[in-house]
């Protein structure tokens, strides 16, 4: 479904990604783990063209999207819950969700909103509240819900567990599983390697802008190098 082929990208003189190749098949949960500054978020943003890939190719459903504008990428069926969530703070929960329907129009908005509320009952309680006044966990739920409103084929999640209480993290990972079960392919970028690898079918490890290791979730979980570097010497 998504194929990243030898992509490099840089911010000015600083090269952030070097010849990255990642493949995501339909129906999979694929995770990308790595330390701070390894280039995880950059990888996601490169899919949307900012920063633009300086070499290599990105294919989505057979289309070459390497040079496609950001808003057009969204219309092709890729949605993201971006780094820092980026919800619209002065708008209500409902309005935020409605904003997510732009790629598909509001035709199914009512139905899809009900589905999002089913995944996150908390959002239903807060539907009329300004999104900026909610807790971090609720905002993260909203960011994921908003992305789902566009009925994406591929959902990109950038560190959905960042800064959240363990209980909420657990709920969010459960929801990711449910989203996949409903037919959406998920590309998950995480620092929380343990949870991410347990959930994912396959994983990639990013170190200094390069893919260092890849394999199935279980393989990576048991890999001694991964355990030492990302799982605190073993759990």
């Amino acid at each position, binding site marked *: 479904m998504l194929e990243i082929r030898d992509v490099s990208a840089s911010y000015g003189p600083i090269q952030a990604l070097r010849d990255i190749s990642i493949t995501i098949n339909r129906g999979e949960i694929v995770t990308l783990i790595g330390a701070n500054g390894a280039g995880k978020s950059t990888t996601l943003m490169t899919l949307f063209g900012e920063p633009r890939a300086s070499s290599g190719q990105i294919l989505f459903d057979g289309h070459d999207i390497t040079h496609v504008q950001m*808003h057009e990428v969204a219309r092709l069926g890729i949605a993201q819950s971006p780094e820092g969530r980026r919800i619209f703070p002065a708008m209500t929960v409902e309005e935020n969700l409605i*904003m997510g329907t*732009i790629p598909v129009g509001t035709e199914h908005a009512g139905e899809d909103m009900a589905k999002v509320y089913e995944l996150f009952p908390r959002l239903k309680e807060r539907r009329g509240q300004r999104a900026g006044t909610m807790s971090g966990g609720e905002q993260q739920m909203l960011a994921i819900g908003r992305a789902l409103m566009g009925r994406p084929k591929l959902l990109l999640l950038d560190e959905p567990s960042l800064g959240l209480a363990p209980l909420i993290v657990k709920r969010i990972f459960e929801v990711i599983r449910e989203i996949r079960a409903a037919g959406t392919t998920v590309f998950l970028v995480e620092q929380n390697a343990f949870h991410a690898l347990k959930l994912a079918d396959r994983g990639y490890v990013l170190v200094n802008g390069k893919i260092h290791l890849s394999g199935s979730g279980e393989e990576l979980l048991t890999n001694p190098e991964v355990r030492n570097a990302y799982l605190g010497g073993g759990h």
Partner: protein
Amino acid sequence: MTQTRGIDYGHAVRDAVLAGMVALLVFGPITGLQLSGYEVVARMQWPLLFAGIVTLGRFCMAVWVQTEAGERSLARMRAKRSGGVTVAEGKGKNWQQKLVPFALIGGLALPFILMDNRYWLTVVLLALIYVLLGLGLNIVVGLAGLLDLGYAAFYAVGAYVLAMGAQYWDMGFWGALVLAMVFGALLGMLLGFPVLRMHGDYLAIVTLGFHEIIRLILTNWVSFTGGPNGASAPLPTLFGLEFSRRAKQGGQPFHEFFGIDYSASYQYMFVYLILFLFVVAAIVFCVRLRQMPMGRAWEALREDEIACRSLGINHVTVKLSAFMMGAMFAGAAGVFFATYQGFVNPTSFTFIESAMILAIVVLGGLGSITGVVIAALVLIMLPEVLRDFASYRVLAFGIVMVLMMIWRPRGLMHIVRPRFTEKGA
């Protein structure tokens, strides 16, 4: 829809001619008829031009909807109309909605009450012009979050469209009103392009510069605009009836036609009534805009541009449309101002004007339509009310402003967020 390929041009031509005729009927009496002596003289060049534009546009549209791309977007529009969600109407009316009928009746009755008090009539008139300006800038600053310090430039352009149009092309108020809105929108787009990538302070500086450019052109292009000497602007006509004491070229003035005594108030009352209806239409337009995807897109762009784009919003069109829409309002306000003053010159459009309009929007509570209306009325009329304080007037005005900022730091009105319900529910 079983549509055979191929375009039915005959149908398109028929639609286009029909639209053109309607346009001719609408624009004909408004822009085409002039009284000369005791005869109505048809000046058909303007209505013919407008009708021509409408005909051509209708033809292009009729052909376009029969192409594949057109059919697709038509289908999309149909899909949007059926199903989905809609903005919920509030259960009980809030106090703002309850006030609407009173405001309407009061607004319509006001010129007749103030008929013998021409001074206050002109003050109210000016306040209404600022309501219009505030509504326009509210789209740019309040909704789209683009800090525009050069808004008075579009206001100036609107005013000069009337003055120059009358001077060089024999254009009346009505034609100028349409043209000023179109011209203002185009100019808004022209400013929009270079500032697409700018935010906040930088945007403010560029728009400030743009305002100065326009003002300097108006001041220094003496051969065309008359420079600092300004130019006169005509009054609106009622189906060709003029409001002056004596009609030019032996035409017939309003008061003679109806056999009533001449009063200088009539012209202001007439301008007021047109302006009042225009402002009401503008408010309805703004309220509707806020509930439309376009209005939501503006607000979302103000909140977070990257998030918007990654959700599939084309930030270029959204920003440009905000600038265009705002400039369109300013263009119309300019025409009203010019006709109200009867005269335009560049000193009416200094930076202070832009600052004043911005103050109205900020004071009203960024984004709130009711707030803008109240703030405009207060800001323009308060200095007049305070005239009794003579030289302490400005001080009193300042104190009121400071107190406002203490008690209502986020503006007069809070924005009511819309709620949604499923359609048909």
